[in-house]
Every structure is written in C-alpha cells, then in structure tokens.
C-alpha cells in the first residue's frame, strides 16, 4: 500500500516536474508570473489531439508541430505583449486575462469534457519487476529526466546557458555587460512554453485534457517553482518531493485533500521564508559585524 502510494507520488512528481521546469525557466529568467502558461499547455494538448484525430497525422509527426506551436506562442507573447507592458503586476493581470480567454475558447471549440488521445501502445500496461506500470508513465519519467538533464546541460555547460543564468541573477547588470537580455527572455519563453507543451502532450495521452486542466497542472508547477528558489535543479527535485508528499498525504488522509495540503504547505513556506529565520538565529555574529563596521 505504502510503496504503491510512493510510486504513484513519484510518477505524479515527474509529471509535475515537466510542467514546472518550463514554468520555472520562464519565471526565473523574466520574474514575470505568466499565468497563461497553463492555458497554452492545454491548448497544445488540444492541438495535438486534433492533429492526430481530425487530421490523421502520425503521433511522432504531430508532436513536434504542437511543441513548435507552444514555442511560437510563448515567444510572441513575450516579445510583443509583455515587453511593452514592462510591469510585473500588469503582466500578471494581462496573462490572467489571456488564460481566461484561451481556456474558454477551448471550451467553446472542444466542449467541457475530457479529450483523450487514442494512443493504444502508449496507454498499455506493462509489468516492470512485478509492478504493473503504464507505458505513458514510463515515458513521462524518461521525458522528465531528459528535460532536466537537457536544461542542466544548457545552463551549466554552454555559452547561452551562462547568459540565461546571468539574466536570472540580474537582468539590468546583464544588459550593461552586453548580454541581449531581450532575446534571452524571448528564448526563455519559447523554450519554457515548448516544455509546457510537452506536459500538455503527456496530459492528453495519459488522462485527457479539459479546458481547465492546464490551470490545474500549472498550480503545482507554480508551487514547485516557488520552492525551487531560483535553481532549476531544485525545481525538479522539489517536484518529485511534492509528488511524494502528496502520495504520503494520501496514505492517512483521503486523496481529495492533496491539493489543500499542497497549498497550505506553500503558504507556510512563504510565511516561514519571510520571517528570515537565519537572521534571527545569529544575533551575536551580526553585532560583531556592526561594531567593526563591516556589513554582511
């Protein structure tokens, strides 16, 4: 029972992780709360569904198209809309407006019910070391690891990654040393939205998408991003931890309480972080610094 829950939690964590990495890449680079992320994620899922079911494209051909769609939408939103707003609160509210529109347009076009991709091979159950697992879940874990490793490689081992990390640290300073921050931000949006589209494809294949499911997926991505505190590796780790946490919560409590606990944890985290516990713990050191006039 417990191992089952932990396994489910881990798989949930991997699914949260894919969406969270994309969201975090965007948030850390631009510091903008891009709430339309979830709706675009769902839109990509719907596009994939309609390409495969209505147009009859093969799965592997439709997937890159859906990802490209996500990337282009993300880039356009950053370049032509958010850059002009140039204000965090304005971006937040504007993206909320976009999310509402997109979600309801999807509702009008596809109806309120779940659309599940008829992908026979991917939804089959296979037995791995005696445990029945769905192929799509294994694929999800693989995709999650690939995205994680790919982002790590790009950020830590490549020139462009250095630029992105510089913008994450301090956008104005990066601008001053000659990094083209505008392009980096557009790149972050394109890449992040494409990763979000991957999450959308996984959702439509695994359990289907509703117009509102993008928002639901994003909520957990959001918590993991917040907990990650600026590092994408942390975001991936926190996503898994969040999945496990929710699996464990499901052990003594009914599963419906998972969301409640997750958001309560987020609230507690924000409050505890704001208290700045570390500064309370070291009053002596501070006084010594004050005497010598050296600031920390």
């Amino acid at each position, binding site marked *: 029972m417990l191992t089952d829950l932990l396994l489910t939690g881990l798989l949930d964590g991997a699914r949260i992780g894919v969406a969270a990495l994309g969201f975090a890449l965007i948030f850390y680079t631009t510091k903008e709360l891009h709430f339309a992320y979830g709706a675009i994620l769902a839109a990509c899922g719907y596009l994939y569904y309609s390409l495969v079911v209505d147009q009859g494209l093969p799965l592997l051909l439709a997937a890159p198209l859906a990802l490209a769609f996500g990337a282009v939408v993300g880039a356009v939103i950053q370049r032509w809309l958010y850059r002009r707003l140039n204000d965090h609160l304005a971006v937040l*509210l*504007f993206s909320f*407006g976009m999310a509402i529109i997109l979600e309801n347009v999807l509702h*009008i076009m596809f109806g309120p019910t779940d659309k599940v991709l008829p992908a026979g091979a991917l939804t089959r159950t296979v037995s791995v070391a005696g445990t029945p697992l769905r192929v799509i879940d294994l694929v999800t874990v693989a995709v999650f690891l690939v995205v994680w490793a790919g982002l790590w490689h790009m950020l830590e081992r490549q020139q462009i990654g250095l630029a992105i990390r510089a913008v994450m640290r301090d956008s104005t300073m990066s601008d001053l040393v000659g990094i083209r921050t505008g392009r980096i931000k557009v790149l972050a949006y394109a890449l992040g939205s494409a990763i979000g589209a991957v999450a959308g494809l996984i959702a439509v294949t695994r359990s289907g998408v509703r117009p509102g499911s993008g928002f639901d997926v994003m909520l957990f991505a959001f918590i993991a991003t*917040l907990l990650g505190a600026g590092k994408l590796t942390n975001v991936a780790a926190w996503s898994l931890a969040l999945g496990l946490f929710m699996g464990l919560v499901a052990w003594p409590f009914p599963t*419906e309480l998972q969301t*409640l606990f997750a958001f309560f944890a987020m609230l507690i985290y924000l409050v505890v972080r*704001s208290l700045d516990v570390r500064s309370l713990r070291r009053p002596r050191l501070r006084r010594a610094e004050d005497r010598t006039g050296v600031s920390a």
Partner: protein
Amino acid sequence: MSYLLTLVTFFSIGIILAMSLNLLMGFTGQVSMAHGGFMGIGAYTAAWFAINAEVNMVWAMLLAAAAAALIGWLFALATVRISGDEFILASFALQMVIIEAISRWTDVTRGTYGLSGVPKPELFGEPMRTIEQYAVFTVVVTLICAVVMMRMAGSTFGLVLRGVRESVPSMQALGRNTVRVKILVMVIASAFAGIAGTLQASMVTFIHPDSFTIMLSIIIVAYLLVGGLGNMWGAALGAVLLLSIPELIATSDVIPSNLLGPMERVIYGVVLMAFVWFRPKGIIAERPVLRVGRMLRRGTVTAPTRPGSPASATTPDAPGATR
C-alpha cells in the same frame, strides 16, 4: 421589474466587494487574490448558522463578517513581512486553501453538493418574502457599507493607507505603526467581503464552492482595474459595468445558451486585457490629495497629536504620481 431588482441586488453586492478590495489593493497596494475566498467564508458561515442554528440572517451577517475578519486577521498576521509579488502569491495560496477547505469539509459545507435553502433575513419579526423587500434591504446594507468605507478612504486612515503603499519607511518615520495599519485594513476588507457573501447567499439561496473560486477573485480585481484603483467611485462603477456584461450578452440572443458562461468569461478576459493595456488607471483614476488643509478644517483628517512629529497627513501629496 423583479429582473431589475435582481440586477440591483447583484450590483450592490459587487459594489461592496469592489470597494472593500479597493481599500486593500487600491489604497494600501496589497494585491489580494483571495477576496473571493473571503466572500465564500462569509457566505458559508452565514448560511451554516442560518440553516443549522436558525439564526436570523441579519445576525448571521455579523457572524459572517466576524468569521471572514478572523481569517483575514490570521492571514495578515502571518504575512506581515510579505509584500509586493510575494503577497500576491501568498493570497493566491490562501484562496486555494479556502476553496479546497470549503469543498472538502463536507460535514459542515456539504462539499460539492453545496448548501441549499439559505433563508432571507427577518426584519421586525417578519421574514422577507418578496424580491422588493430583499432588494431594499441589500441596497440599505450596501449604502451603509459604502458610506463607512468612503469615510475611511477620505479620513486620516485613508491617507495613511496610501502612505503605506507609496513608502513604508516614510510612514514609519512619521510615527505610524505600518504593521498595525496593514493588519487592520486586511481585517476590514475581509469583514466587508464576508457581508457581501451573506447578501449573495441570501439572494440566490444556494451556495456552492464553485461560486467563490480564484475566477471570482480575479473578476473582483478586474472591477477595480476597469473602474479605477484607489478611487471608491471608480470601484463602484467598475463593478456595475462588469456585472452588466453577462446581462447584455444574455439579452442579445446571439449566443446559444450553453455557451453563455464561457462567452461571458471570454469577454471578461478581453475587458481585463484591454484595460491593462490601454488604461491601467481605470475609467475614474485616483485623485491626488491636494486639499488636506480643507480636510483638516472640516475635521475629516486629524493632524498627528504627538508633539514634535511633522504633519503626517500631508505626506502623500500626489499618490498617483509615483506609480
């Protein structure tokens, strides 16, 4: 006629919501995404007491305001050191916690079945039966709330709130307890949201967790953006304008009825985006405080009593200017 009265009732509820969030968001600069949640707390508290303890809705309204204020107080205490973007995140999390708690605490709230049969208030020992009586009751309650909130906005308290928005350190330098002010405004705003929730519960007689989701919270924020942040008349105007949208598209007969809900939300989204893009200050922008001297003479604003401290009332002389 009864249709018109129903509209008036919903407009009144919207006005209370917009004005109370305005105190918090427009004046103090604390952008809250949990206002719909506080309304839900109020609606559920009042409905529970009215149904299970047969409390008159008039008194249940006070209980609702107290319950919402209590949660607001706890939240404000916890988030005293959080401001700006982080406060938005915290209030967002609170909204999710409130709505999840309401949906899952089935013993009290009956979860996703909703609570039905919320009674109308009783006045002078007589329960209200007609929509006319209830509309008059709602308008009177709204007028009282609006006058109280507008008095607050135009008083020293309102000036201090704006001062906190512009610069916490300068308000502290002027000897104001900014922590207490922030907590107080959160408590006041949530209490009024609780009252609005009660009015809503009595009006529709059926309450459901889906009525108080993050969508509602965003829509209340949109009232302010459309009408004008930091302006009480603007807040009221925004609420009335946005609440008329669904009525206008419902009467136009162009859209099939099963798509009315989504269509309505699409239009909300468009309006929200358009105002953020073209007129972020709203229809009636916030007015700078230029006439402090007259306010002082009339007595709506009091000069600080502590000897030696400069006139705190004159600090935010042009609050809109620095935004």
